[in-house]
């Protein structure tokens, strides 16, 4: 069912789909002598939902953290919407980007974390409005109105004044999703966003994400162990091993007839 649905959606949005939004060029990331990404090349087109799968330690989180500029690559370049993320061009030469340039490119990217990372000193509503107001300069009442809409969308319309400590994990994660969306990012990075949740809370969060995937044009880059969910939303699945893409394809192809031996092994272990 999912593949068909994605296909129709792709055709209904020709304007946003197809253009390259994210590009990794020969990106190398090392931690000491541990080479996590070795000249990684890959790209994601605008509007696509891409799931990264692969064994633990294969570098999936590292990729998302590089995109969020929480890590810097040792070599290679990353581009988002055609602009270099950690480099900028000066006098025709590529140099390390300054904070201003990084913030300019970074505003297109949002992230939801495994541990939610809500701000404990702010109510749910302010968690969502703070960045739009102080970073984007949105008027406060406009930001609040939009935050209420977003909270409604994630099913927490009655929790505007609750503090993170007063919310369950699943509720916190849904606020965190609303918070990321409030910045209107082009790309949403999701790193195992249900892994820290009690099993009975997982479905609610995944439903919200499915909804976003099916009703918005946001490009999603998603690391998950929820293979059913990955099947539902993914246009493309990338199989990682040791910091390389060893196989990629549509969700249907990857889950039903993987070609690579490592992919088959990995999927039989997690499915």
């Amino acid at each position, binding site marked *: 069912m999912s593949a068909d649905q994605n296909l129709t959606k792709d055709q209904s949005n020709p304007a946003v789909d197809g253009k390259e939004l994210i590009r990794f060029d020969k990106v190398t990331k090392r931690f000491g002598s541990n080479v996590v990404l070795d000249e990684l090349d890959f790209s994601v087109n605008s509007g696509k939902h891409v799931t990264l799968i692969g064994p633990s330690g294969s570098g999936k989180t590292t990729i998302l953290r590089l995109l969020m500029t929480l890590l810097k690559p040792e070599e290679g370049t990353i581009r988002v919407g055609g602009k270099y993320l950690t480099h900028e061009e000066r006098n025709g030469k590529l140099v390390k980007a300054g904070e201003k340039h990084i913030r300019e490119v*970074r505003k297109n990217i949002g992230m939801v974390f495994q541990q939610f*990372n809500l701000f404990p000193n702010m109510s749910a509503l302010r968690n969502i409005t703070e960045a739009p107001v102080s970073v984007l300069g949105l008027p406060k009442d406009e930001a609040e109105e939009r935050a209420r809409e977003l909270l409604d969308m994630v099913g927490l319309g009655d929790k505007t004044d609750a503090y993170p400590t007063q919310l369950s994990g699943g509720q916190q994660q849904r606020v965190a999703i609303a*918070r990321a969306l409030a910045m209107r990012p082009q790309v949403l990075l999701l790193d195992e966003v249900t892994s820290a949740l009690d099993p009975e809370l997982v479905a609610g969060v995944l439903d919200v994400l499915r909804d976003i995937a099916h009703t918005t044009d946001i490009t999603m880059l998603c690391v998950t162990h929820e293979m059913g969910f990955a099947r539902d939303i993914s246009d493309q699945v990338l199989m990682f091993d040791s910091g390389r893409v060893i196989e990629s394809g549509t969700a249907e192809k990857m889950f039903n007839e993987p070609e690579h031996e490592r992919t088959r092994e990995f999927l039989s272990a997690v499915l």
Partner: protein
Amino acid sequence: MMSEKFFTEWFLPGIWITVQVTVYSAALALAVSFLIGTLRTSPLWIVRFASGTYFEIFRGTSALVMMFWMAYAVPSLLGIQFVPMAAGVLALGLTYGAYGSEIVRGALAAVAPAQREAGIALNFTKAQRLRKIELPQAWPEMIPPFNNLLIELLKGTALVSTIAVADMTFAGNLLRLAKGDSAPIYTLLLVIYFVFAFLLTRGMRLLERQANRRMGKTPPEKTGFLSGLRSKSATDAVTGTGGAK
């Protein structure tokens, strides 16, 4: 024990001076604590070095000698003459501010790194992250050690009597010199310092409760009459049990 004239002309004004010196020094110390404490977490080594040097200098020098230095050395060195109370307030505020900077630095370092990352992901500037995320979260952690420091500062204000600031200790010394009978007046002074310390602690406890409420934590339940005096350990006990009792 004391004449009415002494009481109204020296003792009451002395109490008021003690209060003033405490408030001014605490305000200065607080400002210095936040400034130096924040600078000490800077990513720039030169900023960390400069602020760290400030901390080491004021930690390593005697507040009393610093007070003499402000009152008597600065005029001859720089040609600036402070009124005695200003010299006292400067010495106390700068010294206790150095200790306070350690509290601020420690509390900032204790904020979860994930909070910084969430701030980056929402594209806040460094200054915005500090102001809206890191300092507000560090603040409740600072209050109990700030309380201890404030009590130390209150008691330290007695030092100003040595540079001719007529605080309540100064008044006590006057009375001893005049009458020779020092037991009652010094006992009274001890009691007054104790009562002030007690009141300050109660005030800080209110602040702590309010800060915890702002973080969505339910305030620790009210404990006994003297609980305020053990503010730090009392909070630890309450939060540590996680409401298990």
